[in-house]
């Protein structure tokens, strides 16, 4: 090989590799349950993320680079979440991770991101402690754009006690981290009103009989049942009430909007109310575009998203992250975190218009004013009147 040819080859290889570097995508981890009882939330969240990534990429990406999702199914299991966190950080070298539906999974996995200085945006998990895990450290890498349980439980109690004047309330919560942390928040919120639940009951995932729990609530004279659980078991509660011939209103956390609650409870679910950051109702052009795009891309049955809140928050989490990466001018973890804490640009999301959503001390993008009450009506969630 003569010298000129060597030079040519070296030149070609070099230019090819630098070109490769310029087009290197920005990897974003997506961790959520795509199977099991939480799957409607996980799948909707992922699909929302996918839509946002496709939108941004169509407009040229961020910093001239395309976004690339690395999605993993955490099966709602903390131990799977931990494995995935390590894989995403060490093997995939993600710039940031969005997701986490289940509070327990978030709490177990976030430590690895905190240590690796990689920002996390929780777009669905609602446990109040999720963003408070590392507040004692100088830099906290955990952000959230979902209505946390403190906000939700306050709203639920407000609705039950103030607006609808119920004095005797029962709490039914599942035995997971989500249910039990939510129950604590509900009890705190009731305490502020000087009330105590007349019955506080617990059940396990996959329980098929709620007779004992409901009878206790009934015997205690409960006028309303407040719930903290996920779709299938919540449907068992609504159906169990019918079994007992006892009907009181159900008010609970946002999971009462899950398709697997609405479908399985059928008419027993009508009138159920829950806090929502987003209702599948095209009230603004931005929302209409989002709903249309979602239905067109994923053809959900009956044109209804499995979990509209998760889809909307998944979508917004990517826009928040993209804005931060753009402002930081880098994909370096600490710089992106700093940018998230001081976003200059307003981010026009599906849930709301985010203006300075985060500060150094406040990592919650959703404030108490944003969520509204949804009500189940004829198999859909509509705005409660």
């Amino acid at each position, binding site marked *: 090989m003569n010298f000129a040819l060597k030079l040519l080859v070296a030149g070609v290889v070099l230019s090819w590799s630098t070109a490769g570097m310029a087009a290197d995508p920005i990897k974003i981890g997506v961790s959520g349950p795509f*199977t*099991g*009882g939480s*799957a*409607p939330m996980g799948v909707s969240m992922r699909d929302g993320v996918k839509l946002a990534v496709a939108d941004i990429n169509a407009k040229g990406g961020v910093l001239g680079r395309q976004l690339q999702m690395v999605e993993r199914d955490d099966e709602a299991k903390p131990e799977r979440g931990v494995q995935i966190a390590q894989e995403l950080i060490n093997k995939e070298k993600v710039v940031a991770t969005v997701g986490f539906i289940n509070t327990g999974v978030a709490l177990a996995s976030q430590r690895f991101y905190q240590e690796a200085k990689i920002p996390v945006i929780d777009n669905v998990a609602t446990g109040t402690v999720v963003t408070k895990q590392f507040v004692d450290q100088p830099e906290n890498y955990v952000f959230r754009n979902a209505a946390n349980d403190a906000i939700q439980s306050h709203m639920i109690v407000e609705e039950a006690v103030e607006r609808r004047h119920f004095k005797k309330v029962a709490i039914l919560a599942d*035995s997971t981290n989500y249910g039990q942390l939510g129950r604590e928040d509900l009890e705190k919120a009731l305490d502020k009103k000087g009330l105590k639940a007349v019955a506080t*009951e*617990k*059940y*396990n995932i*996959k329980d*098929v*009989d709620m*007779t*004992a*729990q409901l*009878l*206790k609530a009934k*015997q205690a004279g409960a006028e309303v049942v407040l719930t903290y659980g996920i*779709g*299938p078991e919540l*449907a*068992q509660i609504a*159906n169990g009430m*019918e*079994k*007992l*011939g006892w009907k009181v209103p159900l008010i609970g956390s946002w999971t009462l909007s899950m*398709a*697997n609650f609405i*479908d*399985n409870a*059928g008419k027993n679910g009508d009138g159920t109310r829950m806090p929502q950051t987003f209702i599948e109702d095209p009230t603004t052009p931005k929302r209409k575009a989002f709903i249309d795009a979602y239905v067109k891309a994923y053809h959900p049955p009956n044109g209804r998203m499995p979990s509209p809140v998760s889809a909307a928050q998944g979508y917004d989490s990517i826009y928040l992250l993209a804005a931060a990466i753009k402002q930081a001018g880098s994909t370096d973890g600490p710089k992106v975190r700093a940018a998230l804490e001081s976003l200059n640009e307003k981010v026009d999301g599906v849930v709301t218009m985010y203006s300075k959503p985060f500060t150094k001390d406040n990592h919650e993008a959703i404030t108490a004013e944003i969520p509204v009450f949804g009500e189940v009506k004829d198999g859909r969630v509509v705005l409660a009147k």
Partner: protein
Amino acid sequence: MDILLQLVFSGIALGMIYAVIAFGYQLTFATSGTLNFGQGEALMLGALVGLSLVGSIHGGPYMSYLLMVPLVIVFGALQGAFVEWIGVRPAIKIKSEFGWIMSTIALAIIFKNVAENIWGKDDLTFPSPLSAKPFMILGANVQPMQVAVVVGALAMMLAVELFNRKSIYGKAVVATANDRDAAGLMGINTRLVITFSYALSSATAAFAGVLVAPLTLTGATMGASLGLKAFAVAIIGGLTSGVGAIVGGLILGIAETTTGYYISSGYKEVPGLVLLLLVLAVKPSGLFGKTAIKKV
């Protein structure tokens, strides 16, 4: 009093579900000394196949509930025979003590994955053939479907018992259960009897599936916890006694609902499991089981 009655009624309905599945465990244990650990999955497949026939999930409804039941039973029988052929027969042939445990569990996992791919991962509603409106018995609410579960479960166990005692084929099953080698020498095709017992066991499970599906939710994961609890029932009642399965089922069902009310819903499952430990410690063959003498 009303409360206790309500809890007992719910407990009976729940307990009969456990009893039917436990009965399925006994059928195969009697003839071959093996158990199908995929019993819960056989129930799940029965329920989902039934749902495809009477529900709108695969373009149906194709037929009425009553017409669907025999078809589901036939499907269950085929599925059971398949399990025996793939998972159990090779293990029996080489006189493996544990091979069938792993292979029936492996098949159960495969069935669950297949079901997830065909019917999806979500829980689905099974259209109830009877009105869901409860009626009153002595001040407690009972749903017609709960009565149907109890009646259906008892009827099926009775049918299987009658078959075993009265028909010539049933006698072959009993003979194989008593002494497989001797039955073989008497000209009974014991291999066929074992296959048949697996078919029967999965058929009862599939039938149980369509019975309970209108009360619970239907989905690929519905079988696992039911199958496990039924196994506890089979141990409590004894693996060789049909009455044991019913009594064990009722004990566990009623223990769960009453503990949930009188003690705490957090401890709902503890008394049943404590009983299981007690039975294993005091009378390992179960409350109604015959003590097995193993000659070595």
